[in-house]
């Protein structure tokens, strides 16, 4: 197994991709970028990432939740179920609060939720911990 870890970033903001992607590369990660949920799911199969950074609000308000749901519960994506999933949003309201009344919350709860802008040290620590566990 290669020691270089691959991170898949699914985010429709090209600038966020550029800065965070370059930062993670400078930290020795291999970065794969996807600009939409659909592209993210396609790249997921191609690049077999060690962790996923997933933005919630892309072209539609809940696109990221749809992607998370697909990864965690669709049979075709079964082998990616345990890939650490870190969800990102500029809205400081994590999914537990956002859907507190919904019964489906357990189905879309990410491994970790980070608010944007992301603190670089927190991001590194989160990834390191997630990769250790995986």
């Amino acid at each position: 197994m290669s020691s270089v870890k691959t991170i898949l970033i699914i985010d429709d903001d090209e600038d966020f991709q550029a800065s965070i992607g370059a930062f993670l590369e400078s930290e020795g990660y291999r970065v794969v970028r996807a600009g939409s949920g659909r592209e993210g799911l396609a790249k997921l199969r191609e690049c077999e990432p060690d962790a996923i950074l997933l933005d919630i609000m892309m072209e539609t308000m809940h696109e990221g939740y749809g992607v998370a749901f697909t990864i965690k519960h669709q049979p075709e994506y079964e082998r990616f179920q345990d890939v650490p999933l870190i969800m990102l949003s500029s809205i400081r309201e994590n999914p537990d609060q956002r859907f507190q009344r919904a019964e489906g919350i357990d189905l879309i709860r990410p491994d970790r939720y980070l608010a944007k802008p992301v603190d670089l040290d927190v991001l590194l620590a989160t990834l390191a911990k997630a990769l250790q566990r995986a």
Partner: protein
Amino acid sequence: MDGSFDRRADGGDVSGTSIVVIDDDYAMGLSCRKILAKSGYAVEVFEDGTKGLEAVLSRRPDLVVVDLKMPGISGMDVISRVHAADPDMVMVVITGYPTIGSAVEAIKAGAFDFLPKPFTPDELRLVVTRALGQRRLLLQSHRLELERQMLKRRFMTFVSHQLKSPLVAIRQYMDVLLRLEGAEAAAGQREEWLSRSRARCDQLVHLIEDWLTLSRAEFSELGQRRDPLDLRKMLAEVVDACEPQAELRQVSLDLTLPDGGLTVGGEAGWVGVLFTNLVENAIKYNRTGGRVSVAARMDRGDVCVAVTDTGRGIPEECRSLVFEEFFRVSDHGGQAPSGTGLGLAITRKIVTQLGGTINLESEVGVGSTFTVRLPLLSPESASPAGSEPEEALG
């Protein structure tokens, strides 16, 4: 489950929870039934909108899932009619074009949520679970207040996201630049990142300006002011002012005016904004070497001004949505659109405040024409003399 849940759905037990699915696509309806029946719901499927509507109104199920696009009675009609008859009915819309515009439209008409096609069984189950949660809430609390708050909250969430995104992008560039200072990797990118940051600053400034303009158009006296305005002169000025942009994009710009006076009632600043928006859009979304024609004519006592471009055109399913706040026609050419998504919302707001209409005709690959129709000003409908000193002094 605790007893605070609705008596009808009996806590967490879904048996007895009824769902009506209305979809002209029979296979789709059957799949929905199969998925939902597996979760224990009692599901009825209707291919015909009218029959589905009758069933909903007579049986009052806990949830209605309806396709937005159907022959005959449309999903939007079903929603409005069910909502009018029973505001407590929770409805989920299946839509082929997932946009904030159609979502807002459907939610305004009474839907709780929407499900963009194609969707997975789990996406359907998630939306249904949430909608049924909403049904319980509706039945036990102040329904209207909740709906209003939800739409507002959803909209506010969306607006905050739009406002925060540029700031987040800039902030992350700064973080990474500071962190990688001196590193080889960052040196080559420094200039590009700074220039991207500047572009995102500009984007935010424009967004705030447009947002403010939209609110002003809503709350200013724009709706009442009817100063006589010489549209011939105004259009010539607008075209003149847009000439440099057109030249820059290598787009030719021409103006056709009919003989005789073209006087409309309004406030000069706003009417200027209205036509400037349209002409600027026509230039911005044009092809290099394209053409923009502005043509005014009289029609049955109204003044019609048509602004025609030779751009990519607007797909049919987007045409009724382009005037919605933040709606963007997604760009399949790969290049990100540079607008704020508010320009046409501002334009429509001004036109309606002036008592006019705006209409769009478009052909993909050929171009689009926006036609503004404003009532010609008759002398007696002008604002009372004296409200504007310049007019009185002439």
